[in-house]
């Protein structure tokens, strides 16, 4: 014991860190901040450290070469002892990190912690959010499978729409004219050196600011932030009714961080690593690229926006969103902190959460994409063929052979790009069906050039049988009157 103390003293004589560390650990914090609501920042830091460690472990074997990366991931997954586990930890760690950073941000927003004097802490936090998302995207690229390859293509296509500079940005992003070795190498440099380096620097700054300015007190309705008096009030709060940070406030942080690490490990064991999906060979075009979980909402937005609004929304939307986030502490730096007195703040969070959740959910089954193999893989339900005439069955064959099923569902199977056709005969008359098939319209291609008159007749005859048993198909009353007028 005495030896340890002696060695400790020897180091401290030179480093002189013991006193500042002790002061930092024991600095008083408001009593109510020892709360489960205040654990997300430290949890994000813990997961970041997990990512650093697992990232370095993966770098021991990963080969950042377009020709080899995919193979090296296969080796990690299948040949290296517990390589799959480290990959799974890193992948799930990434998902958890994005989620926790977002939850932390929501908590900070709802507790008014961005208000005076913590504006800079918030701004650095926004940078940390961007860097975290940057890590998520570049990490997805390093997986260098089909999703990564075509995801890069989508990124390049978006970047190309920047006025004037677009094509140059694409070249700089890809490191050349196509997605290839240089692309992977520069995303490796970003993911392994540039962004983590910036993250470490800004996390340090973020934590320093928290220590300098103190942890945000628990917001009480009616306790108003004023620039003139806040610092004094906070000082009184912490010194009259405060507790030392260690051990008072840190216990819940430690439990939550440990719990999150366990959750990540559990997900890693149970679900395993992410991919890689097919190898990054662009000549294999039988692929359905999908982004990783946290960019699914963007995938949905890109599908649902009207084409004319797409480029402005893509290029201006993020700038506005970022501007609002950065400006927030300046136009709302004083006043109420409590969410109970800030209904618009609460509604904003709800709106954003519902929107993101809805878009993510929609992107899960992507109703806007054709189901590329429905025409060969999803048969016409048997009840639509039973007791039908030869012509109508021939029509069902046309329906399959012409890939109608890729965009139109029957009996719940097939694409959702166009309307389901289970009751189309109730909605469209024979003439309308013929017109729609031949001329298209309403976002449907025209099939006039690709259907012979016989095929059209058969297809429409089949479509006219698609109605619920208790409902009669739509009829053109004028035509019947006309027919009826003849002797």
């Amino acid at each position, binding site marked *: 014991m005495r030896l340890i103390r002696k060695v400790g003293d020897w180091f401290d004589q030179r480093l002189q860190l013991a006193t500042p560390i002790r002061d930092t650990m024991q600095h008083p914090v408001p009593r109510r901040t020892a709360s489960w609501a205040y654990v997300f920042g430290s949890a994000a830091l813990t997961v970041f450290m997990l990512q650093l460690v697992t990232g370095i472990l993966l770098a021991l074997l990963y080969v950042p070469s377009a*020709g080899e990366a995919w193979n090296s991931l296969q080796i990690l997954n299948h040949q290296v002892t517990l390589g799959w586990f480290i990959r799974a930890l890193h992948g799930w760690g990434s998902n958890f990190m994005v989620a926790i950073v977002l939850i932390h941000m929501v908590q900070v927003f709802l507790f008014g912690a961005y208000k005076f004097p913590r504006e800079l802490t918030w701004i650095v936090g926004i940078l940390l959010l961007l860097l975290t998302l940057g890590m998520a995207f570049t990490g997805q690229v390093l997986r260098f499978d089909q999703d990564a390859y*075509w995801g890069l293509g*989508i990124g390049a296509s978006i970047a190309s729409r920047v006025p004037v500079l677009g094509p140059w940005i694409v070249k700089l992003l890809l490191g050349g*004219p196509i997605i*290839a070795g*240089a692309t992977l190498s520069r995303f490796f440099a970003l993911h392994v050196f540039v962004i983590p380096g910036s993250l470490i620097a800004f996390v340090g700054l973020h934590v320093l600011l928290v220590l300098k300015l103190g942890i945000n007190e628990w917001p009480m309705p009616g306790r108003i932030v004023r620039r003139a008096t806040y610092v004094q009030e906070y000082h009184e709060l912490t010194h009259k009714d405060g507790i030392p940070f260690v051990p008072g406030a840190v216990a819940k942080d430690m439990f939550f961080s440990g719990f999150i690490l366990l959750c990540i490990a559990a997900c890693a064991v149970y679900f395993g690593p992410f991919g890689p999906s097919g190898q990054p060979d662009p*000549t294999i075009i039988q692929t359905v690229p999908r982004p990783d979980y946290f960019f699914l909402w963007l995938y949905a937005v890109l599908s649902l926006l009207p084409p004319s609004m797409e*480029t402005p929304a893509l290029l201006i939307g993020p700038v506005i969103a970022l501007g609002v986030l950065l400006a927030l502490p300046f136009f709302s730096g004083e006043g109420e902190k409590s969410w109970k007195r800030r209904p618009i703040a609460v509604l904003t969070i709800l709106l954003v959460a519902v929107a993101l959740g809805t878009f993510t959910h929609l992107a899960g089954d992507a109703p806007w994409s054709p189901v590329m193999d429905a025409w060969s893989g999803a048969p016409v339900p048997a009840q639509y063929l039973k007791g039908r005439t030869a012509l109508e069955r021939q029509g069902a064959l046309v329906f399959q052979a012409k890939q109608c099923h890729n965009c139109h569902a029957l009996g719940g199977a097939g694409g959702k790009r166009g309307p389901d056709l289970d009751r189309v005969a109730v909605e469209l008359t024979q003439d309308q069906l013929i017109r729609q098939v031949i001329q298209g319209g309403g*976002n449907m291609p025209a099939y006039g*050039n690709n259907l012979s008159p016989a095929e059209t007749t058969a297809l429409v005859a089949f479509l006219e049988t698609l109605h619920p048993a208790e409902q009669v198909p739509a009829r053109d009353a004028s035509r019947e009157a006309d027919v009826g007028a003849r002797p």
Partner: protein
Amino acid sequence: MSLPDELSRRRMLMKLGILFNGAVGVVLGVPIVRYLLSPLIRERRPGYESWLPLGPLGQFPEGETRLASYRNPVANPSDGETANIPCWVRRVAGEKFQVFAINCAHLGCPVRWFPQSGLFMCPCHGGAYYADGTRASGPPERGLFEYPYKVDHGNLLIDAGQMPTTGAPTAKLINISAGRPPCA
């Protein structure tokens, strides 16, 4: 007696030191920036495009659309399979062709040809194109990207080398309207 601070020799030396380091920074910065911009500089001089053979005409039956691929002209050994670029070749009639980029004009996903319905369909956001590459439906605002082509000694060649993107004048070599007469 001491001189006013801003006139002291040390001040002067420090300012000179800052100036010197600034100059060194510029000397080092210029090559670093040029290195970073090399993808753009490379493009300006030799250019990225060249004429690439897709194969003998016999591979492309008249009236049909077939998948072909070429090795990108600018490629490194480490590029692996990523430098093998696919494209759709439509032989309209005789020596009249249309060669489409694989990339959807919306956001670059690989379009697939369905000969039965005569449509190209994109698996990402549901863009669809007719056999001649014009837009049929979905989010794309234009038809498929087309490569210039020529027929030489019974071989089909295209002028390619860059991934076409929506907003890019990479289309300077890429035919925007469908059905342009052959350039050869």
